[in-house]
């Protein structure tokens, strides 16, 4: 079954701690994305990765960085988490040139 897997599903961190969100896909999709979802704001693009080590900032990259060392794996890193980074984070993937996204089930992050 083709899917995008996100780990962990739920995470609680203290302000200032580092956070690692992981995403994997088994479809050999070249392009992967990280979004955050907030009520009233919808899905906002944080980073996009076109392939291994080929990453580009999205609309709200500040406070985040990403890593993609294998095509099937895309990580989102928060260095020194802030309370305003409390959100639901979604990873997605797609074939190059195709905007039919497959989303993961999300990671609900609470920063206290």
């Amino acid at each position, binding site marked *: 079954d083709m899917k*995008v897997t996100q780990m962990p599903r739920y995470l609680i961190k203290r302000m200032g701690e580092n956070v690692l969100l992981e995403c994997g896909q088994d479809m050999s999709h070249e*392009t992967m994305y990280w*979004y955050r979802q907030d009520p*009233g*704001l*919808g*899905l*906002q*693009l944080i980073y*996009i990765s076109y392939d291994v080590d080929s990453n580009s900032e*999205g609309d709200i990259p500040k406070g985040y960085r990403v890593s993609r060392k294998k095509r099937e794996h895309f990580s989102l890193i928060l260095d020194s988490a802030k309370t305003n980074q409390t959100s639901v984070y*979604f990873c997605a993937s*797609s074939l*190059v*040139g*195709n*905007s*039919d*996204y497959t*989303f*993961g*089930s*999300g990671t609900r992050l609470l920063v206290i």
Partner: protein
Amino acid sequence: GDSVTQTEGLVTLTEGLPVMLNCTYQSTYSPFLFWYVQHLNEAPKLLLKSFTDNKRPEHQGFHATLHKSSSSFHLQKSSAQLSDSALYYCALDPNTNKVVFGTGTRLQVLP
């Protein structure tokens, strides 16, 4: 820049009544338009995608018509079901592979 507007944050209606969720857009190009649906605690999933040849996409009883003259792609269904309760996102791809999402409309169908 490219943008999508969904004016309704919440739409509440009774089972069996017709559904219409509004979506308008702005884009420099001729974009593809999409509707994604997200049920509670699940991932967003593609519901509909506009065609280049003006055909009307349909899925699970939902349909949407791309009107370039009014820059709209409203989502419609003739009869709402309880299981249609979800968050619906309208989105566009301005041919850059970077989809722009609207703020979402939550549809609540009551018995």
